[in-house]
């Protein structure tokens, strides 16, 4: 994989912006995304699939006064770029003027200057045989862990290198590269004809920082084994603990509720609640796109605004929504540098590293304090309504009896409202760990409805 020529791509983006202005646009912004991906999947010790490719795309958004149009192309040659400009201009003439449409002010544009450590040359030069070997070792470790691990959906190693370029008519031009790699194992365990699967993974910007394949395989096996023999429990209201993976999923729902687009539409249970106490004292939720090496970091957002650290909830009080320039104008606020988009269209809202600050309780102590409760390690379905806060999802995990993980449970749901969950948190773990751009420690909620038999 050769290093991408960022200057050449930046030149293409700036040329597209210039062409749009020449064609009559009053403002324009162009995004280019370039990437190479590699993935290997192994199953039962043999390579199952090997995939390798690279691709690139450009997207343009133009404004004619307050009217916008957007287009994209995978052809970055002159003809492709010219066609992209024509397409966007054609559409801008057909949309309705939006008084709030526009780019960020020139004074808001910029890029943070610290090295975020997003790119590691080593990922681009990893040997294929080495990557296959990592995947094989992760799966082998899972298969060897226990005789009840009888099958596998395999082991996998993925890596990618990418570049992101953005230029606009207010003078911004920026580019950065990033790398990513991940290692994963998904074993299947069986007992008395019933099967269970689970997975574990490690991700990093650089392959040396991945957990060892042996550890990934072992944890995957442990997580899978403890699901064997799961039963459905009776319907009841009990304390519920979310393991970090599930707490992270809960944070993902909160993110939707603080997304500026749902706020200005009143389509969030947190709309209009700024300054109010919405969660327990210990609950401090941060969005920070500037932490070196993490997955949610980038030097500027997808509108050319520098990323930053935003306190979303501080000691239970809602302090800030997450905004791009459009939603900020709608709400009479300032952008928080959270613009996000694919390559084209209006920017949406994305998060940086969106995490819940550590508490002080160990997960073990939380479990020990519960006489009868549910430790949740898996949730499925999309039964969360962030407009109303109603929460209802399929769940699996371990039942807690007298302070111990007693037996596995599946086929049940947990339900409540997000409002009650936030104010009903009884403990926050001390085990925060960044495995992706959303991270949370173990979280305990005083009471939720578990529906089963």
């Amino acid at each position, binding site marked *: 994989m050769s290093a991408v020529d960022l200057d050449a791509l930046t030149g293409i983006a700036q040329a597209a912006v210039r062409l749009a202005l020449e064609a009559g646009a009053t403002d324009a912004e162009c995004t280019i995304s370039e990437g190479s991906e590699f993935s290997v999947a192994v199953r039962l010790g043999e390579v*199952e699939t090997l995939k390798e490719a690279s691709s690139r795309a450009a997207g343009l958004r133009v404004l004619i006064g307050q009217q916008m149009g957007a287009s994209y192309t995978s052809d970055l040659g002159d003809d492709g770029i010219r066609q992209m400009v024509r397409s966007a201009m054609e559409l801008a003439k057909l949309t309705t003027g939006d008084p709030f449409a526009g780019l960020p002010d020139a004074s808001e544009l910029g890029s943070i200057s610290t090295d975020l450590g997003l790119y590691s040359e080593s990922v681009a030069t990893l040997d294929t045989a080495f990557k296959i070997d990592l995947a094989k070792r992760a799966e082998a470790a899972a298969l060897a862990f226990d005789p009840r691990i009888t099958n596998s959906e395999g082991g996998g190693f993925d890596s990618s290198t990418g570049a992101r370029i953005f230029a606009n008519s207010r003078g911004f031009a920026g580019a950065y590269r990033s790398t990513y790699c991940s290692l994963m194992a998904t074993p299947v365990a069986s007992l008395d004809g019933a099967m269970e699967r689970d997975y574990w993974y490690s991700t990093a910007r650089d392959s040396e920082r991945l957990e060892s394949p042996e550890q990934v395989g072992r944890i995957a096996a442990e997580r899978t084994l403890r699901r064997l023999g799961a039963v459905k429990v009776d319907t009841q209201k009990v304390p519920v603990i979310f393991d970090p993976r599930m707490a992270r999923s809960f944070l993902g729902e909160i993110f939707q509720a603080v997304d500026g687009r749902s706020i200005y539409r009143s389509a969030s249970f947190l709309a209009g609640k700024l300054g109010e106490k919405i969660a327990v004292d210990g609950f401090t939720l941060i969005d920070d796109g500037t932490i070196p090496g993490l997955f949610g970091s980038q030097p500027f957002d997808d509108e050319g605004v520098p990323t930053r650290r935003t306190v979303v909830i501080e000691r239970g009080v809602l302090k800030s929504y997450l905004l791009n320039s459009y939603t900020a104008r709608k709400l009479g606020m300032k952008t928080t540098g959270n613009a996000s988009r694919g390559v084209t269209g209006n920017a949406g809202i994305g998060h940086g590293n969106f995490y819940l600050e550590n508490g002080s309780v160990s997960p073990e102590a939380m479990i020990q304090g519960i006489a009868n409760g549910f430790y949740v390690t898996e949730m499925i379905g999309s*039964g969360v309504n962030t407009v109303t806060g109603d929460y209802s999802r399929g769940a699996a995990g371990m039942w807690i009896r007298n302070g111990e993980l007693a037996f596995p449970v599946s086929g049940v749901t947990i339900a409540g409202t997000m409002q009650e969950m936030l104010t009903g948190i009884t403990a926050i773990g001390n085990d925060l760990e960044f495995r992706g751009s959303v991270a949370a420690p173990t979280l305990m909620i005083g009471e939720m409805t578990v529906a089963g038999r």
Partner: protein
Amino acid sequence: MSYSESFFASKFQITRRDLENYLSEALSRGGDYADLYFEYLSTSNLSIDESIVKSATQGVSLGVGVRVISGERTGYAYSDDLSPEKIKRAAQVAAMIASGPAKVDKSSLHEGGRRNLYPVLTAPNETAFEERVALVQRADIAARTYDSRIFQVQATYADSLKHVMVATSEGVLSFDRQPLARLSVSALARENGGVPQQGYSGGGGRYELEYFQTSGTPERFAAEAARQALVQLDAVEAPAGENVVVLGPGWPGVLLHEAVGHGLEADFNRKGVSAFSGRIGQQVASPLCTIIDDGTMQGRRGSLNVDDEGNETQQNVLIENGILRGYLQDRLSSRITGAAATGNGRRESYEHIPMPRMTNTFMLAGQSDPEEIIRSVPKGLYCANFAGGQVDITSGNFVFSASESYLIENGKLTRPVKNATLIGNGPEAMKYVSMVGKDLKLDEGIGICGKEGQSVPVGVGIPTVRIDRMTVGGTA
């Protein structure tokens, strides 16, 4: 249409000889099978929010994916550049999965049948943009005028036109032109400054734009979205625990998609990791259930003339009178297990490896009068609409989220209840089906199915069905 008139031949001057050469390159290291998937996709997307057309996007992407199979191993590479050097390079990368001398004889390509399940002369993507803008504007007005309590409306229209060509080392050469369009409306209702409630509706398919003028009108979808939002204003807590559940006709067919469909995809079953693995010929549902996956339905969202591996789609019986009959195959699984092709090899784009996927999945109508089904329930839940679902194919546990449901009390629908997740276990849940209505209805055409990171359009359908036991995830 002859090959020379086909899209890729005429627009990109790709000859049959070129295709044969790329396939030879792909098999040069001893692979058993290779295929090429060419794709040219134009899309447009526009949305209205606060009565302003805030977003309008159009664009084109194209590329080719090269796959090589060697035994059970797959090598895959793609290029977004159709120049001969780039395609050849992708073929060489995919070929690396095998190691040895070439062993497959070059076979000449022959074209398959040319049926057309979507005889769309002018695809919506090819019409004047103004006409499409009018659709979202009409939806916005219709939802706002439906009731004064509707205070926010968003409508989105999206269409695409995909030209595909598949060439395989077994000599298959197929091409298809796949139009698709969809209009969806979301409405928020609020009463006296209370909690807002959301309603959602939409539809579409592989039709001409005229479909949105005659059948799937913006006014119809807007009214439905508004109605659903208003219903929720009066919703009470959903019950918690096991209940008798009656599913209404149409979109609740998502049950079949999650409870049965995914678990019958051949990749999982070949590997023995599905709760349905090794159960062909066994009773896995009530004898009242016959479940079909049919990729050949005229104009439907999940239909395809040929799948993304060049096989014609067909009607496949998955479960017949409760007995498991067959799996959904892709080429790799049918090669390995010797099963006949079912036309279910699909992929999101040229960047993706095909997998067994559903098309349009539904249950055949039964004998019962839908009214009689509701009357038969002393206490239970009636689900009219769902927001989607998910399944763990290994344990068989699946969920689906009810977005519009009502309590059934003494055989009558009474109060609407809040959104709740329903959970069951695939091979078990379907055994509790005790009544099947004669009112089979297909969904409106908005389904998107995700699997291993790949999204494809699908359809579902079901008649009114009574399920004697299912866990409902409410709080009451």
